[in-house]
């Protein structure tokens, strides 16, 4: 575009500077916790729930809900950024680090595909879910994670747009080759870095 664009008569509402610095480009702050899902909320009974790691791995791993509860949990406070433009600061979660779940696994994989009840998937580089960057969380703000927010457990990868933090997550498929997930096949960015505003394919 040649001349800089100005929206006639638009003033805007700027955030306080400390909050503004934590907002990626194009995002606005919310206090609430909006719900976005592509379909009905699944309701899997806990006795039928498990978390598995499959794919490029000699022996697939599996944890029942009871076994998952016994794994070391940690508390996490992070800002989250949804591709639909809202950001929420200082959200608090409790869950199991993927470093714990992937800890002693040897794999040739460079990518993971998270899969969920209801058929949702999302893809990530393996290095984006290791070294303290991702968790399987089952507690939000001190209470059990509500079904509409992904309970009983969801993936939390807060450095990427929030669609990567798959709700109702049931496992990870370790992959040698990248494979686009649900939204990544429907026009959204394959990686989704909010600070680079990678919302859509080609961004």
């Amino acid at each position, binding site marked *: *575009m040649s001349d*800089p*664009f*100005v*929206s*006639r*008569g*638009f*003033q*805007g*509402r*700027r955030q306080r500077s400390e909050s503004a610095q934590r907002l990626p*480009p*194009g995002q*606005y*702050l*919310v*206090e*609430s*916790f*909006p*719900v*976005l*899902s*592509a*379909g*009905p*909320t*699944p309701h899997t009974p806990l006795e039928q729930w498990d978390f598995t790691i499959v794919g490029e791995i000699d022996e697939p791993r599996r944890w029942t809900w009871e076994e998952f509860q016994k794994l070391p949990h940690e508390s996490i406070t992070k800002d989250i950024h949804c591709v*639909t*433009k*809202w950001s929420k600061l200082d959200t608090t979660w409790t869950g199991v680090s993927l470093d714990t779940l992937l800890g002693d696994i040897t794999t040739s994989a460079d990518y993971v595909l998270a899969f969920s009840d*209801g*058929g949702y998937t999302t893809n990530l580089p393996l290095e984006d879910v290791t070294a303290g960057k991702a968790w399987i969380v089952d507690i939000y703000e001190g209470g059990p994670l509500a079904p*509409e927010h992904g309970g009983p457990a969801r993936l939390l990868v807060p450095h990427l747009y929030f669609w990567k933090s798959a709700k109702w997550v049931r496992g990870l498929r370790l992959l040698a*080759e*990248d494979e*686009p997930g*649900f*939204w*990544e*096949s*429907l*026009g959204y960015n*394959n990686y989704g870095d909010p600070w680079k505003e990678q*919302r*859509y*394919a*080609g*961004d």
Partner: protein
Amino acid sequence: MALIRARLAWQRATVLELIDETPRVRSLVLDAPTWQGYSAGQHLDVRLTAEDGYQTERSYSVSSAPANPHVTITVERLDDGEVSPYLTEVLRTGDQLELRGPIGGWFTWRPADGGPLLLVAGGSGIAPLMAMIRQKAALRSPVPVRLLYSSRAYDEIIFREELDQLVAAESELTVAHTLTRSQPEGWTGYSRRIDRAMLEEFAWAAAEHPLTFICGPTPLVESVATVCVEMGYAPERVKTERFGPTGGAA
């Protein structure tokens, strides 16, 4: 492998017409010369820029039929909003807007996708569903459509007259309204929040294998989607989208 696609570029559009749909809702008919084809149900991003360079963005569903040459968005004014008061109160015919899109490839319907369609809307959640209804009418698609539309009050029903006209003209379109807060005298529609009894009365039987689109506030979307699954609808054919106030400033 992921598809390599061209970036969706920001483009300038000119406001051709402003239509006051209800006291709180305005449609913006846009002339967007570089806007590409899209599917009913998709949305676009609007970016506003202040004189000092401050920018903010929001997403709005397209309410016009893809068959219509002018893309239209339908915006509900949120009193504590940053963008919607500008779009509904400040913006004038002839002003320019920056936008990019179309966005979203899931909550979409093309006539070839078939049906029968169950559309369930709450408030301004009607916008992407109206694009589907308008597209069906424009292309004379024979796919049967049932729309169940929840509004707070009679004068808050968006597209009421147009829906009445379409129902009169289209034998395969059925519309039921429910008014949750107040009803005019002699109201013959529903007068409560959408519930299982209402859906069992109005919606398709599961055996019809319907394709369902639900758009509105989260409690409506959650409860209607849950009832659809309980009624035996295939979950992968129940598509949802949240719309309207997020509780924050939109």
